[in-house]
């Protein structure tokens, strides 16, 4: 379909992005461009507008692309009609000498993107499919667009884009008015609008063509190469890719200015596009790697001394004697009570509702993601899993292992095509035999299920602990919201455990439940774990293909046994062992603090075969790392 589109010249207030696009179009060796911007900033409009600036090929990769169209496949029509085995070129072939445009690149399957970027770097690829074996060359510039709020690219994918630019949201009235006026005019009459910008468009085209002519003659002196190395060293980028991209982008800038030599300012300008997405923190400030399961956090010697306030608090905690678990635990803890009444309003029954402390820190945690034992159902962003149902994205075709009803007709057709000249057809154009049948391999993004099991007993209410716990869960919910995970929540307090929130996709709803969760009373830890098993069973009944992630948040100090007169701690350990046998990814977040620790939560974690983390060692960067890892 012909696309007229919004004129490149009419894009208002995006000078930097416009320049980056021109550089990418002038010099393919600058490594292509990734345009990132908030929704509604016009990034796709601008990038697509670049199409009218070049007379070279322009191929668009939709997120729904299948491999045969991307990389090429056998031409079934030619095979059927003439018995020829001919290659039908894919998009990367069609883009040869021009641009491969990818919208919403962060939604494209990572393996496809990686292949595209590899082919872009090497300029060649081998095709082995449908009985065709070919080595081919193709040279294209990748122009990609993404909205970061729907997920970012991995740093390795980012690094392979030569340049990166962001489209800002403009904050001044004049610019915003101009944008609205132009968009309205464009929508009212596209042809007329394009005509009114034809002079500007022609001027840009001319400038671009002239720059492409000059480019081969733009010289790079040793001094400029050294300067570029200074930039890349300063930015502490990995590898040498950046150096090349930096110089090539600078050459394009010089060519656009009509010069055959580089100036330092060209490199300086190029650095703004080449370096931002690959800059790393200097090595000394890099945080420690995630810990292994069950290992206690290392002593934090390299950290700054705690601020005076914290010192004071620590000393303060020396005063009360360490408590062992007694029936009257929370009621008798006068100090805790005093703290409570000062900090939070208390309800008549001794319950309290704490706000979430959003400044809370999390420790480095590493939850082993469940091994993909079987196909998984569900929809979400976290993991790519193969599905057996007729749902999910059609990725590629394969020989069916069993009888299939999910036939990949295109692949079947290609498989049957070469034999048509020899087969009896009964009046049809095509005779398909059983051995030709191919089935679809589908892939579906699935979100994880997170099951929070929260100790809401009185001891958790002490010293703002609950506030911190809510803060931690709040953070995890934030991530879950972005990844479209499902969450459930169990709370145990007084004499029983209850499902506060059945497993739901509405993370917003979960947050509301969490905010209003009261604390107070004894610690029926065993019952909490028992309820957890109930819920796990229910999840399996609904969907036997999901492995939920369990997050148990407690100080481990069980005070209420399953039956009167029993041993609360022993009961809890027994339940923990049973859950541990399920082999699920579990994390125990230990909220115990104070001078003398009983270490019950740690023991619990061992019984459950779980990762263990102490809450007071948690830090925000660690949190992000954990979730990235779990998301893999």
């Amino acid at each position, binding site marked *: 379909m012909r696309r007229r589109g919004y004129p490149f010249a009419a894009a208002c207030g995006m000078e930097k992005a416009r320049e980056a696009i021109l550089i990418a179009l002038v010099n393919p060796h600058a490594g292509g461009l990734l345009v990132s911007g908030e929704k*509604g900033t016009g990034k796709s409009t601008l990038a697509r507008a670049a199409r009218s600036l070049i007379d070279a090929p322009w191929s668009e990769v939709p997120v729904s692309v299948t491999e045969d169209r991307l990389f090429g496949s056998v031409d079934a029509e030619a095979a059927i009609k003439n018995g020829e085995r001919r290659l039908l070129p894919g998009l990367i072939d069609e883009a040869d000498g021009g641009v491969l445009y990818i919208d919403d690149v962060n939604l494209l399957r990572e393996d496809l993107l990686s292949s595209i970027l590899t082919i872009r770097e090497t300029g060649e690829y081998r095709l082995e499919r449908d009985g065709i074996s070919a080595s081919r060359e193709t040279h294209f510039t990748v122009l990609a667009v993404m909205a970061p709020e729907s997920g970012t690219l991995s740093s390795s994918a980012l690094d392979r884009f030569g340049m990166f630019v962001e489209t800002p949201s403009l904050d001044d009235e004049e610019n*915003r008015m101009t944008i609205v006026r132009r968009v309205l005019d464009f929508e009212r009459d596209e042809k007329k609008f394009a005509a009114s910008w034809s002079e500007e468009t022609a001027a840009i085209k001319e400038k671009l063509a002239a720059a492409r002519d000059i480019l081969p003659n733009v010289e790079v002196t040793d001094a400029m190469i050294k300067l570029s190395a200074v930039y890349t060293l300063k930015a502490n980028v990995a590898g040498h890719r950046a150096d090349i991209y930096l110089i090539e982008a600078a050459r394009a800038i010089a060519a656009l200015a009509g010069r055959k030599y580089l100036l330092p300012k060209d490199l300086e300008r190029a650095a703004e596009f080449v370096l931002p997405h690959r800059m790393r923190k200097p090595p000394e400030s890099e945080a420690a790697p995630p810990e292994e399961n069950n290992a206690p956090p290392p002593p934090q010697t390299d950290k700054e001394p705690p601020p005076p306030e914290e010192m004071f608090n620590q000393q303060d905690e020396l005063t009360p004697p360490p408590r062992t678990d007694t029936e009257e635990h929370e009621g008798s803890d006068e100090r805790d009570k005093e703290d409570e009444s000062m900090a939070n309003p208390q309800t008549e029954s001794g319950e309290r509702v704490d706000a979430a402390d959003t400044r809370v820190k999390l420790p480095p945690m590493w939850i082993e993601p469940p091994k993909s034992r079987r196909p998984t159902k569900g929809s979400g962003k976290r993991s790519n899993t193969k599905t057996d149902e007729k749902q999910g994205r059609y990725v590629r075709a394969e020989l069916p292992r069993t009888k299939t009803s999910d036939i990949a007709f295109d692949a079947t057709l290609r498989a049957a095509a070469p034999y048509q000249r020899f087969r009896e057809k009964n009046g049809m154009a095509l005779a398909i035999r059983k051995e030709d049948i191919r089935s679809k391999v589908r892939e579906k993004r699935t979100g994880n299920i997170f099951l929070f099991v929260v100790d809401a007993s009185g001891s958790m209410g002490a010293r703002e602990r609950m506030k911190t716990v809510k803060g931690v869960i709040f953070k995890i919910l934030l991530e879950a919201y972005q990844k479209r995970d499902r969450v459930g929540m169990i709370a145990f307090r007084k004499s029983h455990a209850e499902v506060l929130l059945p497993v739901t996709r509405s*993370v917003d709803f979960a947050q509301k439940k969490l905010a209003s969760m009261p604390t107070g009373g004894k610690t029926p830890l065993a019952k909490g774990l028992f309820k957890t098993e109930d819920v796990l069973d229910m999840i399996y009944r609904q969907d036997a293909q999901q492995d939920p992630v369990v997050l148990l948040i407690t100080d481990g100090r069980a005070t209420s046994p399953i039956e009167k007169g029993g041993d609360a701690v022993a009961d809890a350990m027994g339940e923990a062992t049973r859950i541990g046998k399920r082999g699920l990814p579990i994390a125990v977040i230990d909220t115990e603090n104070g001078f003398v620790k009983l270490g019950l939560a740690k023991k619990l974690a061992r019984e459950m075969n779980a990762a263990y983390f102490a809450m007071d060692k948690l830090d925000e960067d660690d949190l992000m790392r954990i979730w990235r890892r779990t998301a893999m």
Partner: protein
Amino acid sequence: MKRTGTFPFTAIIGQEDMKKALVLNVVNPRLGGVLIQGEKGTAKSTAVRALADLLPPRSCVVGCRFHDDPKDSANWCDECHEKYDGKEPEAELLPMKVVELPVSATEDRVVGTLDIEAAIREGKRSFETGILADANRNILYVDEINLLDDHVVDVLLDSAAMGINTVEREGISYSHPARFSLVGTMNPEEGDIRPQLLDRFALSVYVAGEKDLDKRAEVIKRRLRYEDDPEKFLAEWKDAQAEEVRRIERAIRLLPQVTSSNDMLRLAAKLSIALGVDGHRADIVLIKTAETIAAVDGHTEVTKEDIRAAARLALPHRMRRRPFEEQKLSFEDVDKVIDE
């Protein structure tokens, strides 16, 4: 099963914001759709389906799979370009439709796929259209849009943004116009909607059950009367329906003459800045909505009041927000900026 028709749009009681938002999208198909959020049983789906009876006929190229507009050659499909390049195509009047996208739809049904019959009979590789082709120049309705599979959302986003459906799959390379008004309904308690998709909706409304006792009773009475004898009920509402169609047609004719002064554009920009909304879509939608409201109201110059009314529908879902923060648009803030 013989369908006797749907519950008349004009017989729906209350829910004024929802009805208004839907009508605006009929009057101006380029507005950009509406998201209707609310609990179960608040007539969300009924209203959208009832809209079908009010949809005006519009001119289409005869025989075109995408019902192209004969006058809008900039957005023609390849087939129309090939057949009518430089010529006037034959046109026919066809009513606009509500095309439903079921939540369980697979990606190939949505975007279109390889025509298997043509492949087997004639050995030809040709494109079989999907729901997005039907949806061109129509209303695309997704019930429970928050439960839609992520990869279907991805392709929806792409088409909604560009007005073009690009298919590169199963040996097929094809693109065609896919400009539609996206109408979604959802119950927020059943899950959130992806922010990117949310932003694509020009308007959003929240509906709640009727709180007024008398009105509530009337809702039930009408529903019972309708179920008791649909034909009789429809006959009773025939005049009201016809009047609504006339109102919509008048607005459609007036819309091209509606203009917005620079002052109104500045006001829209001020509102967006003051309320801290993301991107520029808010300003554009605000003005387009105000222009459409003016057309429905019967005047050709956008006024402050049009902007005020537009803000109610176009801004609530665009407030810059982090997840979980209550996103309550304060209309006092809106009024303050407008009355300054």
